[in-house]
């Protein structure tokens, strides 16, 4: 297994409130889940998406753990319906953003501290 070193750089807790205003056109869906999977905030997301995000994040984290790749940072999914970015914050919350195909995922990663 790959050795997991202590986490050196913490993920920033992102001000999605401000981000949602600035990037509303690029991010049509914003979802924030609590550590238990409950919906803390939802803009354009339904409960079905919340369940998908919670399960996808759990499976991705598990797959990484099995391969010795803890800690999970983020997951970028390219779907038939568009792109979905899921990431963990240090407070244990999970954020999911649907990203329009025209939007730059790289600049979003940089703003979120995921680059």
């Amino acid at each position, binding site marked *: 297994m790959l050795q997991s070193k202590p986490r050196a750089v913490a993920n920033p807790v992102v001000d999605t409130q401000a981000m949602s205003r600035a990037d509303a056109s690029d991010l049509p869906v914003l979802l924030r889940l609590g550590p238990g999977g409950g919906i803390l905030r939802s803009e354009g997301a339904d409960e079905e*998406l919340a369940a*998908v995000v919670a399960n996808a994040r759990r*499976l*991705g984290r598990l*797959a990484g753990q099995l*391969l010795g790749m803890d800690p999970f940072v983020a997951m970028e999914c*390219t*779907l038939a319906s568009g792109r979905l970015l899921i990431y963990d914050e240090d407070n244990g919350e999970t954020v999911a953003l649907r990203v329009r195909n025209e939007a730059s995922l790289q600049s979003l990663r940089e703003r979120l501290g995921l680059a």
Partner: protein
Amino acid sequence: MTTETRTPREQIRASLIALKDVYGIAGSFVFARGGYVVARELPPMFDDLTLAEAGTRLALLQETFAAVGDRLDSAVLRFRDHRIYVKPLSCGALCIITVGSVNMPVLRMAANLVGHRITPVLEPIADDPPPVDPTSPQLASATRRLRGRNVD
């Protein structure tokens, strides 16, 4: 005209070896429907049982999106030092493990090319039962379960 004498697994593995030409790729593996590992090109520290368990989770990841009528075209799982690039195929998935920085457009292109190459080879064997290795930990654990139920 040349005749392919290698087994499908050997052909798939040859494609995985070619992936290592891309800077940052530590290795890769392919799992079939159900998650069992068909071919791998990874250091021995990754045992087949662990890869199969990870493969099962990644297969479920595909199914999670399929269950709501969506289709996963690719996924990048980012961990602190590593990434897992998952390229779903019609009969399984190609998983690529990267370390440090990797050129993502190159990785995507390489995954697409290898995916196209291995899909016709993987299709006929995707539903075959996994090969039984007498030294595998999977078999050892099955034997323990049998003994636990007093079955000889």
